């Protein structure tokens, strides 16, 4: 019996040292960087366009400033031409600068806009028309626990009537003021801000999920959303409902599904599908509802 035990011990040892897992070096496939363009027009607001390069997957650079593309000629043409220029804003939450191209002419409802981005001799263009109906939030509520494909959450409930007669796509928006005690609610464990001390900053958060009104035309709809940032009882927020154009809705739904597939190993992988020919990205629009005050009850 003792000999058998020794034998199995040796066997197990050999098995443990020579099997299981090891890091492997992946010889990267030749990869040609692609331009990524992202711009959503909001009525009443000046355009803001994020322009970056994609990089090889195992490349260490991933911050917005590392990937930002400088020197592009960016125009958005509606009733007049808006030449966008490079600008940036400090992301208090992640403590980093986020560069983008910024226009000077606010977008208006009913207008068709054409985007043109010229970079290294190539021009990328796309159009969007802001003609989505504006949604109205009828009521809000809070639920301590709900379950969806992402798991268990506490959540903000948003009730509204779908606008009849059109194909509509919605996403959630919450504006609030946060401080350094706020941290991410996601399971990726976003760190709380380390760069603002006890200061406060305003934060606008867009929902990752896109809601389609397929089969629900003109009916009552209800979303339950868990915002990305944690809250305390009595926190004051303003809720909005964005009505997206179809192109933007499909793009953001696609990246939402990809993220879910990255997190959940049992979800089939999702490939990014672009809405602008020749590059990755989307040029679209969203009409934002009137705000509704929401105070966290717990």
């Amino acid at each position, binding site marked *: 019996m003792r000999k058998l035990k020794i034998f199995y011990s040796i066997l197990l040892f050999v098995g443990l040292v020579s099997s299981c897992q090891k890091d492997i070096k992946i010889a990267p496939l030749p990869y040609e960087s692609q331009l990524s363009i992202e711009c959503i027009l909001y009525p009443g607001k000046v355009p803001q366009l994020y322009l970056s390069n994609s990089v090889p997957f195992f490349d260490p650079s*991933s911050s917005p400033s590392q990937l930002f593309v400088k020197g592009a000629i960016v125009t958005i043409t509606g009733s007049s031409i808006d030449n966008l220029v490079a600008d940036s804003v400090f992301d208090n939450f992640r403590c980093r600068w986020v560069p983008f191209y910024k226009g000077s002419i606010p977008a208006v409802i009913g207008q068709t806009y054409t985007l043109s981005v010229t970079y290294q001799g190539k021009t990328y263009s796309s159009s969007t028309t802001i003609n989505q109906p504006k949604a109205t939030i009828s009521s809000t509520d809070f639920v301590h626990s709900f379950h969806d494909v992402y798991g268990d959450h506490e959540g903000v409930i948003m009730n509204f009537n779908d606008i009849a007669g059109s194909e509509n796509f919605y996403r959630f928006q919450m504006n609030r003021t946060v401080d350094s005690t706020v941290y991410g609610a996601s399971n990726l464990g976003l760190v709380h801000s380390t760069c603002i001390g006890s200061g406060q900053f305003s934060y606008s958060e867009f929902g*990752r999920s896109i809601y389609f009104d397929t089969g629900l035309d003109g009916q009552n709809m209800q979303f339950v959303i868990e915002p990305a940032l944690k809250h305390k009882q009595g926190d004051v927020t303003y809720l909005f409902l964005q009505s997206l154009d179809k192109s933007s809705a499909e793009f953001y739904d696609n990246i939402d599904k990809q*993220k879910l597939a990255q997190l959940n190993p049992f979800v089939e992988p999702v490939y990014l599908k672009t809405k602008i020919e020749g590059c990755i990205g989307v040029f679209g629009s969203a009409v934002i509802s009137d705000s509704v005050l929401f105070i966290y009850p717990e």
Partner: protein
Amino acid sequence: MKNKKSAILIIFLLNFSSIFGQNVTISGFIKDSETGESLIGAVVYCTSTKTEVVTNNYGFYSLTVPKEDSSGLIISYLNFKPQLKQIFLKENIELNIELVDLSKKLEEVVVTAKQSDKNVQRAQMGVIEIPIQKIKDLPAIFGETDVLKVIQLLPGVQSGNGGTTGFFVRGGNTDQNLVQLDEALVYNPNHLFGLFSTFNTKALNNVTLIKGGFPAQYGGRLSSILDLTMKEGNNQKFKVDAGIGLISSNITIEGPIVKNKASFIVSARRTYLDLIIKPFLPKDITTTYNFYDLNAKINWRISKKDRLFLSAFKGNDNAGYKSASSINYGIGFGNSTATLRWNHLFGNKLFLNTSFIYNTYYLNLSTIQGKYYAQVYSGINDMNGKTEFQYYPNSRHKIKFGANYTYHTFLSSGNSAKIPKDLIIANITINNIPPRYSNEMALYLNDEITISKKVGLSVGIRTPAFITKDVSYYTWEPRATLKISVDSTSSIKAAYTVMNQFLHIVSSSSASLPFDLWIPSSAITKPERSEQYAIGYFRNFKENKYEASIEMYYKSMQNQVAYKEGTQLLEQSNIDKSLVFGKGWSYGSEFFLRKNTGKLTGWVSYTLSWTNQQFKDLNYGQKFAFKYDRRHVLSVVGTYELSKRWTLSADFVFSTGSPYTLPVGKVSVADGGSLYDGVYQVFDKRNNYRMHANHHLDIGATYKKYKTMGKKKYPITTEWVFSIYNVYSRRNPYFVYLTVDAITQEPKAKQVSLLPIIPSVTYNFKF
């Protein structure tokens, strides 16, 4: 009226030969002299007419030749001593023959008669018979001899990743293999993780793999037929054959119920790996792993013309792994089959087999990985009836015709989500899964025709149908194999086959565990269909001591199934609506050289192949390499009889790595990425990377000893089987996954391997 018509048909068939000439028929059964086991695929060769016939799955043969004064009859079977009989061809002869098994004799026997050349002369392609003894001699993981491990060493067959037993034939998926044991379907022929097959070799009589040129009696799968026949049981004396191994033990008991008339065999195997490794595991790890399989068979010779067989099989796996790490799982699955068969002889030319079969399969798997869980349940229940006539009107025709009906019941469901906050994960409730019923049936006719001494043709037609409450599919499948002899030792063959498949496995492309759901065809999920063209050159050398072949094939496969991008199974999911459909195609060349006799036996096989798939809704609509597309696969297998007591064996396998998918780039998305890091993956195409090449060398040695036991000097045979799997402990990839470095936050890839060097010893004894 129907009965009258049937009677007229039978009378016509029985008299067919006499209508066309003065012939005599030699018929009978060929058996092992010691055990009474039927010898399947034994060759009966008539020297005067130079015609031959091969025994069927019950050891029956029927050879019709012109009347003559006399002729020689050579009866041969691999590893058995051939017999030469001188017979008078004046009238029909019933000739039952018993051959002596040479592998059981310690003394050296010189075989003078040449081996069979049916691989060259028969109008069949892509058919490989594997002698059971060869399976037993080859080195095995943990000493568990394994039929599927040997199948993987054949040309045109590829293994699963990391040494697992799943097998893929000519670019087909695992569900495209029809695996049947005593005619009963076995939906999952593997034990856990595919490390072992579910078939206990000690209970098997015959194994045949068909990968192309399918005869019409087979259908329902696109890529291969693995036909396994259980032993019938020794009808002469009681025998016990037992083995004690490192992870399992087995016992087989067989013997006569009524000598020469009825016999039985019972064989059981059980693992105890979990009990053995338990003391060595860290305290925070709980693991269970056990499997068992049980085979039983009774056969009863009711009369000279009637025989009954009742066989049953049950195999079951249970495994669980719980630890503080991020991966936990629990898995249970099993196959059960029961087959009742009746053989009847109408005269000496018409053989009837009628079978009633019941088989079940289930898979119940749940796993947790990180903060997510997934569950699947897949259950199948089949009731099957079939009848087949085998008619040998003369030496030029071997006709098979029959009908097959199966009533399927499917239960399939899956569920995956984030683990609830209360950590309570509700199991899939089997009673809540809506069953799906379907009827599958087929009629078929196949004739193996000897057109001339040089030309042979196997031609057949199969007409399958599949009916559910929502949809019906009727189709037909032409089959043809042509053989043209170049000379007495070589031939050229060509085959064309159409196959349909009405049952489908849907597998997760991302999970490492077997998330396989079986579903039937429906209005949405159309039947899979393949067309296969093959051509080959076959040649034997040195009186059939060596056989060699080169085969080339092209196979197209329609209506292949895969999950849509982003599919997350929920209990209420309509699986059909989560699928996308596409096509696949595979082509390649297979080289095979086998030495059948002598001290050194074995084979070398090499396959060069390409397999691609294309789905409109996957991979941007572009073609991509199939998950098991491997450019090169080489196997070298050898067994050497060193002495009367020692047999050495070795095999070496090399294959190109399997393709898998990794993103090629990453891109920042600012506006929609607020919840997470805002970095998304860019894929250029599916299966764009390849794992490292897979190769391993395995060696084995068997020491046999014959002795006697007790006062009555019962003969007992003992065997020590030593083997080392993966001698140089190559870390062959099982799968690769991505993770993020905790410090640098950069992505990195990890490779998981399963089977390192595994030495083992098994002690077998027979008395």
